[in-house]
């Protein structure tokens, strides 16, 4: 690991002042990803600004939503009684990720900004456009079982690894940002970028800009939301495919729905096409099949991850069917 300087920030404003003043500074949350990447020399900051003293409060908004301080731990958010009651998919997504030890360390802000676990990104002996722009990508013709089928480019097929982000994308959360130019908000669906020609640019954050909070808006149907994750072992593994889902029925018509996918996208994948094909349509098997087909039309699988197309199809249909069944039975999930 390369030597670095360390500063602890009392709040977001101080963190930004420190980051502006220091060369090659990075913000440090729980460190569960950054420390590992520094040890592998994939990340080589000159300065770490510790932002774990930022707000970790989880507070109610007037309308029945929540504002989550960026320094709240993953464990604290998943354990919060309001999250468990109002947004069960968020609690389930967080608890489906990592281990209890890591969830006790990892922060909400850090979870959103974690880097891909693509083995070629980690291995400095291989080519990676995300690590070294223009170098090439050894995953394309390598072992890419865990890689993305949505949002990929000829430069990068790395999967965004977060479970929590998939739930937040489904909930239309907003990130509260603070930077040298002031405060602003961004829809979480706009936070992460698809790789295109610049896989090294992963988010829309400006230099020194910092996530200070995440706001989850009120959403009645989220009370019966769910998150289901399929992986190679029963626990403590990244997703092959995961599905965040919820529906609202009006008689036999799907009045509203949210659907998002993990393990398959270069960013947390909101299934916009499927949602559009479901809204206002009769809640039938044919509707579900057509909607899932609409989403999967954009899939660009490679030989090693073609199985994810069929897995995603079956998982989306199974989950949507279950949500519809729950809604018909009075919403008892």
């Amino acid at each position, binding site marked *: *690991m390369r*030597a*670095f*300087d*360390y500063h602890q920030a009392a709040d977001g404003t101080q963190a930004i002042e420190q980051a502006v003043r220091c060369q090659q500074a990075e913000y*440090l949350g*729980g*460190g*569960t990803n950054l*420390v*590992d990447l520094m*040890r592998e020399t994939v990340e080589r900051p000159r300065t*770490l600004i*510790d932002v*774990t003293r930022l707000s970790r409060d989880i507070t109610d908004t007037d309308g029945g939503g929540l504002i989550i301080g960026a320094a709240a731990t993953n*464990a604290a958010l*998943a*354990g919060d*009684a309001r999250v*468990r*009651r109002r947004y*069960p998919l968020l*609690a*389930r997504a967080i*608890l*489906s990720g*990592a*281990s*209890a*030890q*890591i969830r*006790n*360390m990892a922060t909400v802000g850090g979870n959103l900004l974690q880097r891909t676990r693509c083995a070629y990104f980690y291995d400095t002996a291989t080519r990676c456009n995300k690590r070294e722009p223009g170098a090439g990508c050894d995953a394309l013709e390598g072992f890419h079982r865990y890689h993305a089928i949505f949002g990929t480019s000829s430069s990068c097929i790395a999967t965004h690894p977060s479970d929590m982000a998939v739930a937040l994308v489904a909930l239309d959360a907003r990130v509260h940002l603070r930077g040298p130019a002031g405060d602003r908000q961004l829809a979480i669906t706009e936070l992460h970028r698809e790789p295109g020609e610049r896989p090294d640019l992963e988010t829309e954050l400006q230099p020194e800009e910092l996530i200070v909070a995440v706001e989850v808006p009120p959403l009645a149907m989220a009370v019966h939301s769910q998150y289901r994750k399929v992986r190679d072992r*029963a*626990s*403590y593994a990244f997703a092959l495919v995961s599905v965040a889902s919820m529906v609202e029925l009006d008689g036999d018509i799907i009045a509203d729905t949210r659907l998002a996918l993990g393990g398959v996208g270069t960013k947390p994948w909101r299934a916009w096409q499927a949602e559009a094909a479901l809204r206002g349509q009769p809640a039938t098997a044919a509707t579900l099949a057509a909607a899932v087909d609409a989403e999967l039309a954009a899939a660009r699988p490679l030989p090693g991850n073609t199985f994810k197309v069929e897995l995603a199809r079956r998982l989306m249909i199974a989950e949507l069917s279950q949500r519809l069944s729950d809604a018909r039975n009075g919403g008892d999930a």
Partner: protein
Amino acid sequence: MQWTINGQVREAEVDFRTSLLDLLREQFQLSGTKKGCNQGACGACTVLVDGERINACLALAVQYQGREITTVEGLAEHGKLHPVQAAFVEHDGFQCGYCTPGQLCSAVGMIGELERDLPSAVTADLAAGQIEWQRDELRERMSGNLCRCGAYNGIADAIAAVLAEELGEEIAR
């Protein structure tokens, strides 16, 4: 820099790169905490910070100044094994023993989470205030601690026995 380790205030000046794991082992000769993968995958380095379990290998020591850290050396009190330690002996919760300090600290942290009714990925009803403890809950919650000898059945038996004793909850096999 200063930390409270197993109830004692300890001081050292270390490079910012020093992990909490290396601080414990190299600076304070508390070698009970083990270095397995050193990348957060195996849980051998699990310690308790203010009662919560974390991976010491991914923790920078500088970030944990002023905190109360408990290692496997701090579990026993007055020469008497912690109930979790005694249960591991009773139920053969180990073979080679390398992962055991992490398993023990993790189990102690997990029992604390149980006492606070915190949910896990396999908790059926997340909205329920009280968790119904089944065997699959226990295994899910300990999934961050690998045992390459495969002593999992003994580990699960040991923890289940402690839970039955302390919480009066029998966990079916």
